[in-house]
């Protein structure tokens, strides 16, 4: 005879429990928001549908790099160089970068504006500049990862093809510095535009317009002025006016990269100006975002 089991599930109402655990300060809260934004840029911790686009773009970036790595290995006997240098990869695949920024910058900022969640952040220990820093850092890191992953694949491919390891490593490190600048400039410009509208669709369209249109217009003008008018210097200066050509110019002068823009910055003076304008652009994005969130209605 088995004993009757009297033990059934009982729900206890334990009442309200006070919290006396640790309360982390501003810096740790900002870090939590940073990783939340970084994960959010790839749709992690969000619905399955919001993972599709960022993961697909990352996939395309890596696929192209993989093909380059395969070509390097197949043709190892013929050439000892990658068909596309590391530092030119970002410029070549800039359309993907633009789509990623256009899709994810509004996710980071416009949602909080549209659903009016912003006051909930600012009624907590976080300062407004912490919010901006966490969002800026989160998206910039997401872009850096998007740009770095394919470079690493190409690097592995180059090493497998037994290209000179020292040269490849040096090139890669320089190119990584370039991707940092690309990531910060693109994140900054994208977030400034996204912070101006609570409507996501509008944000996406505006960001694509800013990047793609400015690049198309500037490249065309550069072509006309350099080859039709014959003024290479003026064509080079025009590169300041579009984010892509600006950072490309920065790379050419600072990192001695092979530029892909129609016209490189004119001379050393031009190079210095490109560097200064790049840093000024990053500073301006930071200042504009802070200004925007100082005035945001609570």
């Amino acid at each position, binding site marked *: 005879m088995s004993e009757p089991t009297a033990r059934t599930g009982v729900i206890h109402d334990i009442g309200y429990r006070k919290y006396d655990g640790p309360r982390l300060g501003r810096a740790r809260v900002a870090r939590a928001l940073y990783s*939340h934004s970084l994960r959010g840029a790839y749709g992690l911790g969000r619905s399955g549908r919001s993972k599709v686009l960022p993961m697909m773009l990352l996939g395309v970036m890596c696929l192209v790099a993989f093909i380059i790595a395969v070509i390097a290995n197949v043709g190892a006997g013929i050439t000892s160089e990658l068909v596309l240098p590391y530092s030119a990869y970002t410029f070549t695949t800039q359309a993907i970068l633009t789509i990623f920024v256009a899709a994810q910058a509004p996710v980071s900022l416009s949602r909080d504006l549209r659903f009016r*969640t912003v006051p909930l952040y600012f009624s907590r220990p976080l300062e407004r500049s912490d919010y901006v820093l966490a969002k800026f850092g989160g998206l910039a890191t997401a872009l850096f990862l998007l740009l770095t992953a394919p470079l690493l694949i190409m690097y592995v491919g180059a090493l497998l093809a037994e290209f000179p390891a020292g040269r490849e490593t040096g090139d890669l490190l320089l190119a990584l510095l370039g991707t940092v600048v690309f990531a910060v400039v693109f994140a900054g410009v994208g977030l400034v535009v996204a912070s101006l509208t609570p409507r996501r669709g509008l944000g996406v369209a505006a960001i694509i317009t800013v990047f793609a249109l400015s690049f198309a217009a500037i490249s065309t003008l550069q072509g006309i002025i350099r080859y039709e008018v014959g003024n290479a210097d003026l064509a080079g200066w025009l590169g300041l006016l579009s984010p892509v050509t600006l950072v490309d110019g920065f790379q050419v002068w600072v990192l001695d990269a092979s530029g892909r823009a129609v016209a490189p910055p004119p001379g050393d003076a031009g190079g210095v100006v490109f560097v200064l304008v790049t840093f000024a652009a990053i500073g301006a994005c930071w200042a504009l975002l802070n200004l925007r969130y100082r005035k945001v209605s609570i």
Partner: protein
Amino acid sequence: MPVIQTEELTKRFPATTALDRLTIDVEPGVVGLVGANGAGKSTLIKILLGLSPATSGRASVFGLDVIKDGPEIRERVGYMPEHDCLPADVSATEFVVHMARMSGLPADAARERTADTLRHVGLYEERYRPIGGYSTGMKQRVKLAQALVHDPEIVMLDEPTNGLDPVGRDEMLALIRRIWVEFGITVLVTSHMLGELERISDHVVVIDAGALLRSSSTSDFTRTSQFLVVEVSAETDAVAATLTEAGLTVKRDGHQLVLSLDDDETYDLVRDAVAAQGVGLIRLEQRRHHISEVFGEDQADV
């Protein structure tokens, strides 16, 4: 010691004066802040949170100055805004966990407190579904949960009953009362309905056009603002006469009789009067007075 103190607090916008030399002391408990729309209730809360600077005067929370010690105050305060503030595309659990982390709770504590808090505000299975599909009542509960999740010492609730039906209103009011009685958290709650706040508040502050109209414990208010509405099936005049004979002040309002509700004996008198006339009792309810009616009486007194 008062939890919240303001001294000659003034806030001017280019077009209006939102707060006009407001001086109040808030003791621990449930404090109702009543005023018509635009009376300056939300402005006061924003100043107390350090989100908006005052034009002049001083304000302190827990004895901390709202301008100098804003971050320190915000660590110990919960805030539920009047407007919608919930993202539609995440679940209540995900959202409240995130807001708990934004209040400085470590990840595991944030998850644990979120589960507890959502249970306390009455959200169960639906907490895993996206907030976009929630009813107004459920959204208000999520808004309340994010204000409570980090176990603050005081919560400021801006119009928490807005948009709720009568049942939802009663549930929300009961919940707010529990925040003080069971959780031990001081509550500053605003509404434009005096009647609903006087039921749950220990102290009521009435402001009008940014100036203090009245500040008193709830029992003082109850005397002047609680009424009983009686509707009978026939012989309304006779019932009214009987009640007047019994010593009550009776006002005729269409088919209804309005009595001042002094104590529970009033109910007995109504029962006896209706029974004596042999008519049916259709309606017997406490009327919640709109704040403007109280203002009207005040002005009549002056």
